[in-house]
């Protein structure tokens, strides 16, 4: 996927609440047509990053610096009006709980039609026709009937399909999906992510998939960027990453994962633990993972390590690993 043109370039993006910086100047790319997974545990800043890209940050949070380059424009600096033309049109967002992003008092079909009417030169009739096509495209049976129903009439999986229909309505070039299946059952998760992946191919969109689930990354992403405490720890294509993760945190995560070793059972293998918790990073001047890391050197405690290449398209923010290169 890396031979494709770069669609989104995030450079030194910093996000904070009040005096507290939460995302500390992160950089990553998303190539046209690829699925890039942004993974990390709760509080690492992955969701805040997603919202910052769309400039939809919650009250009190703001972008402190950096650029979000998309199609030659800097979304971090774009006037709000221009941004509104872009949202839902060229870039769209899918959130974890569709119930909170859908309007409960409007029929599903009308909500999707609104997106089309806002961005495309269409009559109401044309928009409605397109809504029915979109509902069929995302696998919602009986689009004629379902389009007139309200969000509460839909099951969780169907609601997320409706959200996807809305997100892809204008055939965006980038879909940002923040934990899109975390609230869903595992059989429905597989269907929804397969659907999103099919649409990515047929509509040649890129997907920025934000998740905490390494299984989801392995099954549906092309590349992965691991965040820890508001910084990027590692980025790599999924193949090399799952074969040999380089950052001690990424290695720890895979070792701690019950699913990773397939048929492991408590009677035969103890899970690897990452000691401590993310809170240990709070007062750390150096690498945020250093307090939990099994292999620190003095350099780790001086300043946060920068991302450096260890192989093709594989970068890691760890002086110990970079020295092994």
């Amino acid at each position: 996927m890396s031979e494709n043109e770069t669609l989104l370039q995030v450079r030194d993006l910093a996000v904070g609440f009040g005096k507290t910086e939460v995302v500390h100047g992160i950089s990553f790319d998303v190539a046209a047509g690829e699925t890039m997974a942004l993974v990390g545990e709760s509080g690492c800043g992955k969701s805040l990053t997603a919202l910052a890209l769309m400039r939809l940050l919650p009250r009190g949070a703001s972008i402190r610096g950096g650029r979000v380059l998309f199609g030659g424009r800097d979304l971090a600096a774009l006037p709000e009006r221009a941004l509104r033309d872009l949202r839902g049109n060229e870039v769209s967002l899918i959130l974890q709980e569709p119930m909170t992003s859908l309007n409960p008092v409007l029929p599903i079909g009308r909500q999707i039609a609104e997106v089309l009417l806002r961005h495309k030169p269409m009559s109401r009739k044309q928009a409605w026709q397109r809504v029915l096509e979109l509902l069929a495209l995302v696998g919602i049976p009986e689009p004629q009937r379902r389009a007139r129903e309200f969000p509460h009439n839909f099951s969780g999986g169907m609601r997320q399909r409706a959200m996807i229909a809305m997100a892809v309505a204008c055939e965006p070039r980038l879909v940002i999906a923040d934990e899109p299946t975390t609230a869903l059952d595992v059989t429905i998760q597989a269907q929804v992510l397969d659907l999103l992946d099919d649409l990515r191919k047929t509509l040649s969109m890129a997907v920025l998939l934000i998740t905490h689930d390494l299984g989801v990354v392995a099954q549906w992403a092309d590349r992965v960027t691991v965040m820890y405490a508001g910084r990027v720890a590692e980025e790599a294509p999924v193949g090399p990453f799952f074969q040999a993760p380089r950052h001690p945190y990424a290695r720890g995560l895979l070792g701690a994962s019950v699913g990773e070793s397939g048929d492991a059972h408590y009677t035969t293998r103890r899970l690897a633990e990452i000691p401590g918790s993310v809170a240990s990073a709070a007062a750390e001047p150096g690498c945020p993972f250093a307090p939990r890391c099994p292999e620190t050197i003095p350099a780790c405690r001086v300043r946060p390590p920068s991302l450096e290449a260890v192989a093709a398209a594989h970068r890691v923010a760890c002086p110990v690993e970079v020295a092994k290169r």
Partner: protein
Amino acid sequence: MKPAPALISVQDLRTTYMVGGRPFHAVDGVSFDVARGETVGLVGESGCGKSTLGKTVMRLLRPSAGSIRLDGVDIARMEQSELVPLRRRFQMVFQDPFASLNPRKTIGALLDTPLKVHGVRSAAERRRRVAEIVERVGLPASALQRYPHEFSGGQRQRIGIARALVLRPELIICDEPVSALDLSIQAQILNLLVDLKRDLGLSYLFISHDLSVVRYFADRVIVMYRGRVVESADHATLWRNPRHPYTRLLLSAVPVADPGRRREPAAPAPEAGETSAGGCAFRPRCPMAQARCAAEAPPRRALDGGHTVACHFA
């Protein structure tokens, strides 16, 4: 694997809610045993009745039919007053320990209360037991003077486990105990539960929607669908040779953390629709369904080695 006689034996258990004036059986004729020292995993998707089953076994809910025998004594129809002395023997660990911990009480007080209720009169003895359990679950002694909000998610779950264990129970019912935790913390808690089981000879009924966790943690697994048990087997058999089409669907949907083993895209299965009364509840989603499945609910039948399945054709 059937070691000692069952610690808890559930027969034809049914739990009924009234929904819009009509009875709805969230648990509908479930039977299983948990042997001493055994971990039984209970899996299924949301709404399958697994949490209701856990609460009914715990007797937080009253079953509408069936029996729950704890060491041979049926607790299914006991009044709460009769249950109190028995509760010492079976305790529960919840998904969200924060919601189950009184925010105005220190950890010390939270752990002291159950001992008082269960008649440990000597304050010195209670202090000794509280200190012992706090150390056992890996919390610092200083935790006793602090309040629940001062702890992280993983530490709160340690408090929840300490509270369940302070009475030295034999059976712990764990309802999604690691689902709210980050991966790196999940491993810490699972390892702790494994250690406690080994050191204290506990039995677990481990309820989870996460098949990977259950595969790692359970000796035997029960799969539920719409209030019924569709399959049960020891953990190795269930993953090596799942027989029920629902179990197969469930196992194949679990995303494996290995890009070299990408799964085939899921066949677009229909959403669970209405089922004809009397037929198999899984029929609308089942790739193997035939006419008989609409007419007749499949009974649970025994295969080799304690493996059971409720399907006409599996």
